[in-house]
């Protein structure tokens, strides 16, 4: 069976061989907040989760200051904790809330660590996080969105990274598709959706664009948390079963990559081995 790489494509013929010949999930790792009360415990838990993910052959995906909370970057966590980087098994999110100096440092570290996959997102931002400005990237645009950031990556490190972008099916469809086209035109090659519950007609539209599609699955039972992430109030569903939803997604969107958010490492992770069969 071919292994599905971080960008959703097959690695048939690639020089890098999978450590485990099985289907691969992209599994989100929320890095500890900078003001975490017990940073040591948070770092230890992160290292353990990371190792479990990569040892099982999956892709570890580090977030970038989600919801505007000051957290640590995936690159520095890998470096400081001495975590192993296996080709195609690490992806970092990169949002627009950085100084140019920090952005360069992240990209340099990703290059040195041989991290190939970057998911570019606009990000949530906060008072504490500096926002990239057009002049920081040497462009005329006043503000920097994920479109400008993708273009910047293509301009400054051409071919260095496989670049993915985000798609929010909860936004008005026409508006979101237009944004996505601009992201793809800027150089992105993959699209990761916001979490899909059941089915979503926009997935067919995404596949029609020719980009690699990675479908996100919400692995927490708490759907109200998902509402905070996507920016729209989703109907409460006390019976939501994340594993059953994942099975539905796997059946429905064969050929896509799958990104798991809020995965429970104790109860859900051990079940992934058999869930795709």
């Amino acid at each position, binding site marked *: 069976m071919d292994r599905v790489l971080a960008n959703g494509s097959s690695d048939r013929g690639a020089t890098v061989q999978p450590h485990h010949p099985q289907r691969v999930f992209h599994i989100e790792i929320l890095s500890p907040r*900078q003001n975490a009360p017990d940073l040591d415990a948070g770092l230890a838990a992160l290292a353990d989760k990371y190792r479990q993910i990569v040892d099982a052959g999956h892709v570890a995906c580090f977030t970038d200051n989600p919801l505007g909370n000051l957290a640590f970057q995936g690159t520095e966590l890998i470096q400081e904790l001495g975590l192993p980087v296996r080709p195609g098994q690490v992806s970092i999110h990169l949002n627009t809330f950085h100084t140019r100096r920090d952005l360069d440092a992240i990209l340099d570290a990703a290059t040195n660590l041989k991290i190939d996959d970057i998911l570019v997102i606009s990000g949530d931002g906060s*008072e504490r996080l500096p926002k990239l400005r057009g002049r920081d990237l040497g462009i005329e645009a006043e503000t920097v969105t994920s479109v400008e950031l993708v273009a910047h990556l293509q301009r400054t490190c051409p071919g260095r990274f496989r670049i993915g972008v985000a798609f929010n099916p909860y936004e008005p469809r026409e508006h979101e598709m237009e944004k996505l086209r601009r992201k793809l035109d800027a150089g992105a090659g993959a699209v990761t959706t916001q979490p899909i519950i059941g089915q979503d007609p926009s997935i067919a539209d995404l596949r029609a664009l020719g980009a690699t599609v990675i479908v996100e699955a919400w692995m927490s039972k708490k759907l109200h948390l998902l509402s905070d992430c996507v920016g729209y109030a989703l109907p409460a569903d006390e019976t939501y079963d994340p594993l059953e939803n994942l099975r539905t997604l796997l059946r429905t969107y064969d050929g896509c990559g799958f990104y798991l958010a809020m995965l429970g490492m104790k109860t859900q992770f051990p079940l992934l081995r058999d869930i795709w069969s």
Partner: protein
Amino acid sequence: MRIVVCVKQVPAVSQVSIDPETKRLKREGVQAALNPFDLYAIEQAVQLKENLGGEAIALSMGPRQAEMSVREAMAMGCDRGVLLCDRAFAGSDTWATSYALAAAVRRLGHVDLILCGKQAVDGDTAQVGPGLAAQLEWPQVTYVSMLMRADGDRLVVNRMHEEGYDEVEVDLPAVLTVVKDLNIPRVPTLRSVLAARRQPVEVWTAAEIGADPACLGLDGSPTRVVRTGPPPPRQAETVRLDGPADEAARRLVHDLRMKSLL
């Protein structure tokens, strides 16, 4: 250059409330944060140290848990952290706080520059920086929005006001209070956070800074909060712009310009 940057731990903005009995901010059980304006003072102190050499020292006064804010300043690049922690400091108003901080600065010795955020977001007084300058009898510049240059024992800075800014020369040693326009505070790295956790924070008592107990706490505070009240409710108004999108957009721009918001 030897720089002291004053930092304060404040309740996280979203959790601020006032005790109706004591008229004081409720601090117990409330998540704490570094005063946001202090971030700009820290960044400037670290930049000056990096460019001119010397030492940046974070100084705070508060309960033991205020050490977290001192460590945050150290994670951003301050070389040393000092916390004034003693029951004698409890209840100090801005004048008594300035007195204690000034005593700590004297104990540190050979300080060229003190940087403070323009105000703390809990009390919003903007008095401690100027009070510190008064206690030390040093010159001060408030609302500094840009540091133009450092010429030996003199700084040239821009001081922001409602109609623009003044370019001000100030002899060192001096006290500056700073505003957000000054710089972009750096985000600490994991390495710097871990390094800051390993460094000691020096904890000084009132006796160790040679402070007169009569000048500290409630006894040393000439001001009293006698009444507090909520601000008047905001007069929110919803305006609906119907019609074609381009026409509605034109009207929106027009209305915003008429209110000087664009």
